[in-house]
């Protein structure tokens, strides 16, 4: 195909700038000593200091990370077991039904997931707070783990397992020394996706969080509803740097280990 034309390059540049402008706009004003996002008075780090001095905010930040790590871990275990279970199903129709059920939570609108989980937790008596948030994050992360692990299992050569069995490996050995190492990049990618789902979620958490427990997204929402505070800008500065590091780190790691690419995130 032809090379990138001048107007084409210009168009790409414009979209590129528009995509990043709001983020840099936020970060730029996080250094503003005036209290607004309009006129830059002078450089200050006070808003960053405010983030780290605010114990409540730090607790929320830690909660968010804790929920992400824990839910990611549990969802990865459940999802990997699920994917292994799915490939062991022989009947094609049953397998497709399970896969469709698996994908329901991926395609469902967040509001519906949040609302239905709220009903569920209220009925079975789970108190709204840390537990309900953690359980919902596990619940909506499981299907993406399955989808990341499944292709690895399907591309695996069945004769590897036969060979291991012939050579005297027990079922357990086959699992821990053949299957799990083989699908490990998929598991890793699944865990990573579960983390980002959890960190990014607002709507579901908003429904099931109750009073007293909050994650970063929910907190930013209530701060933003109250108006502009440059503390939020400082948070975005921190979040941007962390996100960049994680994405770039993941990109290089995946380039080496050929895991399913992040593009499944669609």
């Amino acid at each position, binding site marked *: *195909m032809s*090379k990138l034309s001048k107007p084409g390059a210009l168009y*790409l540049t414009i*979209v590129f700038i*528009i995509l*990043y402008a*709001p*983020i840099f*706009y*936020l970060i730029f004003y996080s250094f503003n000593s005036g209290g607004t996002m*309009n*006129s830059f008075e002078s450089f200050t780090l006070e808003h960053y200091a405010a983030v780290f001095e605010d114990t409540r905010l730090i607790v929320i930040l830690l909660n968010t990370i804790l929920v992400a790590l824990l839910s990611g871990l549990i969802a990865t275990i*459940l*999802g990997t*077991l699920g994917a*292994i*279970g799915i*490939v*062991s199903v022989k009947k094609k129709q049953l397998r497709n039904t399970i896969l469709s*059920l698996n*994908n329901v939570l*991926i*395609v*469902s*609108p*967040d*509001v*519906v997931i949040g*609302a*239905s*989980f709220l*009903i*569920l937790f209220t009925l079975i008596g789970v108190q709204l707070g840390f537990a309900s948030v953690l359980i919902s994050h596990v*619940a909506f992360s*499981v299907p993406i783990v399955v989808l990341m692990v499944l292709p690895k*299992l399907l591309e*695996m050569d*069945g004769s590897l*397992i*036969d060979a291991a069995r012939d050579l005297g490996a027990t*079922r357990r050995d086959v*699992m821990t020394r053949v299957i799990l190492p083989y699908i490990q990049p998929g598991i890793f990618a699944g865990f990573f996706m579960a983390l980002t*789902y959890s960190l*990014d979620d*607002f*709507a579901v958490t*908003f*429904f099931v969080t109750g009073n007293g427990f909050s994650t970063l*997204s929910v907190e*930013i*929402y209530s701060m*933003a*509803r109250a108006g*502009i505070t440059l503390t*939020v800008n400082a948070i*975005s500065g921190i*979040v*941007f740097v962390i*996100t960049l590091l994680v994405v770039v780190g993941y990109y290089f790691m995946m380039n080496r280990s050929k895991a399913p690419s992040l593009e499944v995130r*669609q």
Partner: protein
Amino acid sequence: MPIKAKGYFIPYILWIVLFVVAPIALVVYYSFLDLNGNFTLANYANFFSAAYLKMALASFWYAFLITLFTLLVAYPVAYLLTKTKHKRLWLMLMIIPSWINLLLKTYAFIGIFGLYGPINAFLQVFGFEPTQMLFTDFSFIFTAVYIFIPFMILPIFNSLDKLDKTLVYAARDLGATGWTTFRRVVFPLTVEGVKSGIQVTFIPALSLFMITRLIAGNKVITLGTAIEQQFLVAQNWGMGSTIAVFLVLIMVVSMLFTGTKMRGGRVG
């Protein structure tokens, strides 16, 4: 594959029953309950009243506009990206903003569209009076399009990337103009990517409630806003569930319509 692993399956099946089947069943069940927990069809009757239908139609219209503009911006981007030298790297750079917390990006637009924000400052240079752009349809649609663009770029880029280049050369050799080649060859062959792009934009656009609250004030009410309103403000779970049932039905219909397999995205 000779894996025998029925035992591993139990926790996963429990997950499906508890968090996939049960919630759907509960929403359907609750949609038939009134505020006192008695069986009723009033919620459905209510949904077909003029006020709700108008809201649903408006929500559709907004979601349609958001999807259309997102597609119009994202397709050329995806197309041009396939022509860049380090296309994977550029793709990643275009996608990174989608990894930044959604709430933060939305918050940025509160400042950008504000009365004293940069857009108004820019317009003032040309002698326009500052106007309140926040809480308008324009600001709502712009913010939503901004948020969905990376999600639309990805599937389209993937289908363009898979496109066999020789087909394009063949078309050109046979005398097709650039536009004809695009219309008759490139676009039809990438329509699957466009469909998945539409899927990951349209349904989330119908159910947005955070952006409507923050950027559109309470002027724009989407189906998502209505559900949130019923569940968390009015505490009318019955009515909220009824709207949720319709949202799910619309989702199923649109998935049949776009004809792609279940694959979606989650954007607040």
